[in-house]
């Protein structure tokens, strides 16, 4: 299985664009990335079209947006992890032999509503009946994990400000990123409190975006591109919908399980990964992802970041796009952006911070507080 081509729309507050215009731009960019194109089915990653826009049947919105009326498809929902799971579903359609070209599109619109309305919609990623109904926001649930992390591992608040500073540095060089300004540790520490200890600059911004990935079987890939990237591993995992019943909030089993499966399928160890895009909706999410994927022991990620690990050229180089923090997090589209970015890193044509001669990449996307995780391993 291969990725034949990718395309993205800059993440932004696109007040002049709806679902179809965002998808159209991403697929137009994909068309410039492949020699030919005739997908037989469409899979859409999206979280909130139903809760915010009263729009289901989203695959039909996509097919009409890009002139593919008649082709079948469906939407995949795994909250903020919808995009990565859409890639997994596209993989399955081809691996089964049903199709040999599947277009996976991630799309999300968030910017039309006040923050409180988006906050309520995002809270649907948690256990609504037992968490959100008490008024607990998604940020507050992540803040529970962040405070516990700092308390248990004796990390200072300042130490956890280093990650967003680095993400903005990367984002400043990515033309597709929503936030392109550089920030300092002091900026993070002084930014508005969202759910203490989480501040505004620990959090991914609200934005709109679409990304597209064309998956193909080995039989047809050479007709479509001269630079195919292999999909070498796919792993999925889950944790408790609610946080209360988790045995250890700081050891997210969804990430551990998805990693093991994806690494085994690809025949690799985590130390072989050259470049990865990981899910950092909040700074704490980055730490749990780094540890859950085996790039650091539990409790050590914050120290390694302070020591300068995971920068461009390190193994692995993490979130050269700017991550969710700076590239942006159009929630259900993010996992597709990540795959597109890692593909470009492996081909050497990512238009921002990039590394040379990367052979193995990973895209890690999760919905909820690491509740539903997908990991995609890509090889040059």
């Amino acid at each position, binding site marked *: 299985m291969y990725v034949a081509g990718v395309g993205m729309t800059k993440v932004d507050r696109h007040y002049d664009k709806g679902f179809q215009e965002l998808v159209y731009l991403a697929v137009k960019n994909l068309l410039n990335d492949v020699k030919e194109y005739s997908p037989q089915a469409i899979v859409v990653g999206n979280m909130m079209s139903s809760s915010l826009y009263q729009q289901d049947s989203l695959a039909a919105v996509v097919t009409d947006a890009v002139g593919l009326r008649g082709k079948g498809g469906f939407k995949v929902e795994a909250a903020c992890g919808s995009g990565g799971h859409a890639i997994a579903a596209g993989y399955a359609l081809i691996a089964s032999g049903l199709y040999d070209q599947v277009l996976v599109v991630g799309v999300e619109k968030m910017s039309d509503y*006040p*923050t*409180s*309305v988006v*906050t*309520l919609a995002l*809270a649907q990623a948690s*256990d609504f*009946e*037992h*968490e*959100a*109904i*008490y*008024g*607990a*926001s998604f*940020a*507050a*649930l992540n*803040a*529970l*994990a962040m*405070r*516990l992390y700092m*308390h248990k591992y004796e990390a200072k608040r300042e130490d956890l400000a280093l990650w967003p500073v680095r993400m903005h540095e990367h984002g400043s060089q990515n033309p597709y990123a929503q936030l392109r300004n550089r920030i300092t540790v002091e900026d993070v520490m002084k930014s*508005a*409190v*969202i*759910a*203490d*200890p*989480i501040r505004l600059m620990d959090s991914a911004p609200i934005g709109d975006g679409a990304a597209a990935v064309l998956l193909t079987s080995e039989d047809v890939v050479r007709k479509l591109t001269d630079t195919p990237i292999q999909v070498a591993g796919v792993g999925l995992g889950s944790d*408790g919908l*609610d*946080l*209360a*019943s*988790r*045995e250890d*909030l700081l050891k997210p089993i969804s990430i551990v399980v998805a990693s093991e499966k994806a690494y085994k399928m690809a025949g690799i160890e985590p130390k072989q990964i050259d470049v990865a895009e990981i899910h950092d909706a909040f700074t704490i999410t980055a730490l749990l992802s780094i540890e859950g994927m085996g790039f650091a022991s539990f409790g050590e990620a914050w120290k390694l970041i302070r020591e300068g690990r995971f920068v461009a050229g390190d193994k692995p180089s993490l979130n050269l796009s700017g991550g969710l923090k700076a590239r942006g997090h159009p929630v259900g589209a993010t996992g597709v952006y990540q795959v597109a970015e890692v593909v470009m890193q492996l081909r050497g044509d990512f238009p921002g911070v990039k590394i040379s001669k990367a052979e193995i990449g990973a895209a890690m996307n999760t919905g909820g507080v690491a509740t539903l995780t997908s990991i995609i391993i890509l090889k040059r």
Partner: protein
Amino acid sequence: MKISPARVWREKNARYRLEGGRCKRCGKLFYPPKTACPYCGCLEVEKTELPKRGKVLSFAIEHGVPEGFRHQAPIIVALIELENGVKVVSTLTDVNPEEVYIGMSVEATLRRIWEESDEGIIIYGIKFIPTE
């Protein structure tokens, strides 16, 4: 969105009495109640009422609240460990945000948790207050 009476009614034991689950195979207790054991996967679980006292394991002072909760801001969201080790996510009330700390002793109390609109149902549930 208008929450139906049936939706609120069927959660009453979990939400008003802190009723959780107990696995008939591994014996572990958990909250909220589930139809299967979250730890061993056993499908035979029974309902059990949980203790009403515990301590704060972690907390968040939530200023950016979801639509419909503005009058409650800031909301103190807490992860609480009950006396028997079962954990609960709820909110703290009758306490200053600055006075909350990890390890603080708390006990359950029945309060309003959500008024979805001026017309709909008022939803009650368990919040926690300091014991000292």
